């Protein structure tokens, strides 16, 4: 068992002066399933990208089978038998499944022309153990995310990988697909293939892995065998402290009605949705993806048009035709897609914070009052304890948690009466997560109506005063946040 296939020696990496990995030493046993866990920003993804040849380390070496190797790019790593299944899908939608699986390693004749029949046959062979019986000539584009994820895995396997790295492979999979994945990992293990498994979810880590390594703040905290540890110990290692009370206390006083939606319909996303939001409360939106919860939020924000229905704000009907109207009325929407729809990545923190409230910082003729902009942005940087604390740093150099806090700051700066937060803690580490929860609660306490949309039921139950459960484009039930269980919510969401 002391057969080490991959060893990582003293790897250190910085980005723009921020140390992301600090002297990581790790040995991976051949044929084992090695889990890599840690909060977001702990350095897992960076470490994996170094092993995969995408980043070059500042110092330290990687040894495979006892020999030091140097990867100039992903192709070097692939040639050495290291394959990564990336967190984000890396498939080209217009290309066929077979071409995506083999990308540029298609079977070819001597002149380099692709042997299509063989390519399709090989692809079918690779897809079969993954439970996919599907035409390899079909474009990837129309397939569901789960199927695409499995094709991604087939792609990694097609390189005859001896070390397979799975970066949060289950985040988009259904339960059935997850089971299939575990089976595949076990098959690979019996064939001597080593898997490195990165995950947030401890139950699945304990289910599949043999060895668990914990990273925190760019350092390796420890490596333990699964039998010799408990989930509680791993969590302690991850956060460096016992997790106390995770969620802030619930609201005690709920004020007057601030927002009401009456019979809102947008075919086919949702029908006949009515809800009320009271000052000082947090209303949770639960439901499966596609149940209409995000669509309703976008419609309230004016990002999508509604077919019929009314939106009342403080007792008066308002017409909201665009996000601009919504913001003017004090309705703000924190998007679930931070990088593509939320932030201006190549701009400074300051620019981002004032992006949706420029109209507050202008003279009557529209000229900017730069001192006020600077003051406010610094205030929010301090208030949210953003790192780095210089508000002229570029947002793209911030960690996920800090980016999310900057996005929240942007909306609070706009002075919302109603804040709709869609997946406010997605891709955010545990520490920043509870900070964001606290901020949302504080916001509610200060009189803002807060709507939280989340796929994580524990978060929704812990945070919300009431929960609206969406099912197939309708609100199936309102549940009181106190005392509700995950089963209650799931029953309304799925039945």
């Amino acid at each position, binding site marked *: 068992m002391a057969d080490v296939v991959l060893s990582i020696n003293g790897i250190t990496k910085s980005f723009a002066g921020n140390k992301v990995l600090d002297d990581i030493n790790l040995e991976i046993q051949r044929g084992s399933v090695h889990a890599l866990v840690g909060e977001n920003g702990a350095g897992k993804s960076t470490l994996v990208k170094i092993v995969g040849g995408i980043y070059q380390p500042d110092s330290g070496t990687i040894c495979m089978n006892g020999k030091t190797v140097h990867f100039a790019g992903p192709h070097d790593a692939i040639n050495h038998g290291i394959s990564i299944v990336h967190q984000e899908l890396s498939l080209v939608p217009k290309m066929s499944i077979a071409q995506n699986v083999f990308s540029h390693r298609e079977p070819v004749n001597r002149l380099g022309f692709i042997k299509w029949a063989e390519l399709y046959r090989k692809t079918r062979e690779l897809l079969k153990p993954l439970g996919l019986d599907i035409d390899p000539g079909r474009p990837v584009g129309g397939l569901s995310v789960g199927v695409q994820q499995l094709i991604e895995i087939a792609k990694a396997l097609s390189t005859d990988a001896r070390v397979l790295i799975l970066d949060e492979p289950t985040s988009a999979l259904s339960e059935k697909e997850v089971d299939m994945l575990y089976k595949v990992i076990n098959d690979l293990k019996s064939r001597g293939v080593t898997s490195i498994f990165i995950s947030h979810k401890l139950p699945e880590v304990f289910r599949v892995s043999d060895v668990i390594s914990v990273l925190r703040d760019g350092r390796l905290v420890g490596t333990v065998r699964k039998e010799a540890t408990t989930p509680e110990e791993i969590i302690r290692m991850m956060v460096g402290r016992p997790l106390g009370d995770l969620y802030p206390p619930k609201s005690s006083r709920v004020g007057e009605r601030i927002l009401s939606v009456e019979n809102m319909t947008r075919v086919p996303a949702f029908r006949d949705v009515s809800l009320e939001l009271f000052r000082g409360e947090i209303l949770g939106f639960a439901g499966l993806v596609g149940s209409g919860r995000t669509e309703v939020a976008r419609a309230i924000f004016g990002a999508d048009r509604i077919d019929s229905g009314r939106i009342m704000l403080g007792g008066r009907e308002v017409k909201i035709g665009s996000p601009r109207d919504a913001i003017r009325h004090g309705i703000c929407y924190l*998007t679930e897609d931070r990088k593509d729809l939320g932030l201006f990545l190549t*701009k400074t923190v300051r620019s981002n914070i004032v992006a949706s409230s420029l109209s507050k910082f202008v003279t009557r003729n529209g000229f900017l009052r730069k001192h006020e902009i600077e003051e406010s942005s610094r*205030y929010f940087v301090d*208030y949210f304890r953003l790192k780095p604390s210089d508000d002229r740093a570029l947002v793209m150099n911030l960690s996920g948690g800090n980016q999310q806090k900057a996005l929240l700051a942007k909306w609070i700066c706009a002075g919302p009466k109603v804040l709709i937060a869609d997946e406010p803690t997605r891709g955010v580490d545990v520490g920043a997560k509870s900070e964001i929860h606290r901020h949302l609660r504080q916001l509610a306490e200060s009189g803002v109506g807060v709507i939280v949309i989340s796929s994580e039921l524990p978060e929704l139950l812990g945070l919300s005063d009431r929960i609206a459960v969406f099912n197939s484009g309708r609100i199936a039930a309102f549940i009181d946040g106190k005392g509700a269980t995950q089963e209650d919510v799931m029953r309304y969401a799925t039945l």
Partner: protein
Amino acid sequence: MSVVERTSDAERASDNVRIRSGYSIKSILGARETVLLLVSITFSIILSFLSPRFLSVNNLVSIATGMTYDVIMATGMTLVLIVGGIDLSVGSILGLTGVVTTMMLRSGVSIAVSVTAGLMLGVLLGAINGTMISNFKINPFIVTLGMMAIARGAAVVLTSGYFLSNLPPSYLILGQGKLLGIPFPIYVMLLLVILFEYLLKNWSPLYTIFYIGTNPDAAELSGIKVGRMILACYVISGFLSALAGVFMTSRLAMGYAQFGLGAELRAIAASVIGGASMSGGEGSIGGTFLGVLLLAIINNGFVLLNFSVYWQGVVNGLILVLAVAVDAFRRARRGERRI
């Protein structure tokens, strides 16, 4: 201002923050504009030693006059690049509006009406560009490429390829008249540069184009008027091209369909040298002005030193490469990640 109560913690932290002035020495020295200015000055000093004629008033005025059309067009181009677009039609719009204005003048229409009509035509063509780009979401490269062909073609059709001379003398004053020994167009150019530089940095509606160019979707969801501002940028670009067309026809005392041929590429080059990025969200009018200035000084040097003027193209290309290289270096230092 904010709905959040300040916590004592945050309050203390914010008191500790020293108020930094907007500009530090380092940021001024590091700015693209400073570098360009220093390079231009260096070239000027060298040139003034090599050729005593360089610093003569006549020569300086002729450099500045030669710059006006490019600066005026590049100002519009910079706005378009910042908002995340590109406008290949500026040279053709210059040609067509110049032709239309001079044709109206020759058929006896008053100067005020002819010039206004020319400028309005520029606005109209810019508006067509902008509408197709912002409403129909068509790639700006293709839209303005099509407009480039159409406007140039229309200009050729209207003139059948002939020069349109015999313009009323009072029209020529626009481009040739002088105030304190300096031609009018130079004043207009400087005024436009200062105006747009100031508005771009300080006037909220124009300032939002930086957001739009960086991430149009996020800008839309932040309540910024994305479509309207994209349209506005192309309209301004069309208007400024037409203005350059009026000055050029007046200065050269004729209209010609091929005026402004290739100007779009020069304008883009000057904007990029001045700090604009093809991916949008970056650029400044001051930088663009200095970009045109640098190219003009170098080209003037070729003339003064009796080098073959044919070397100009080579040097202009190399300067563009250099500007891009400097940019690449800056980005690398800033720590932009590759994947």
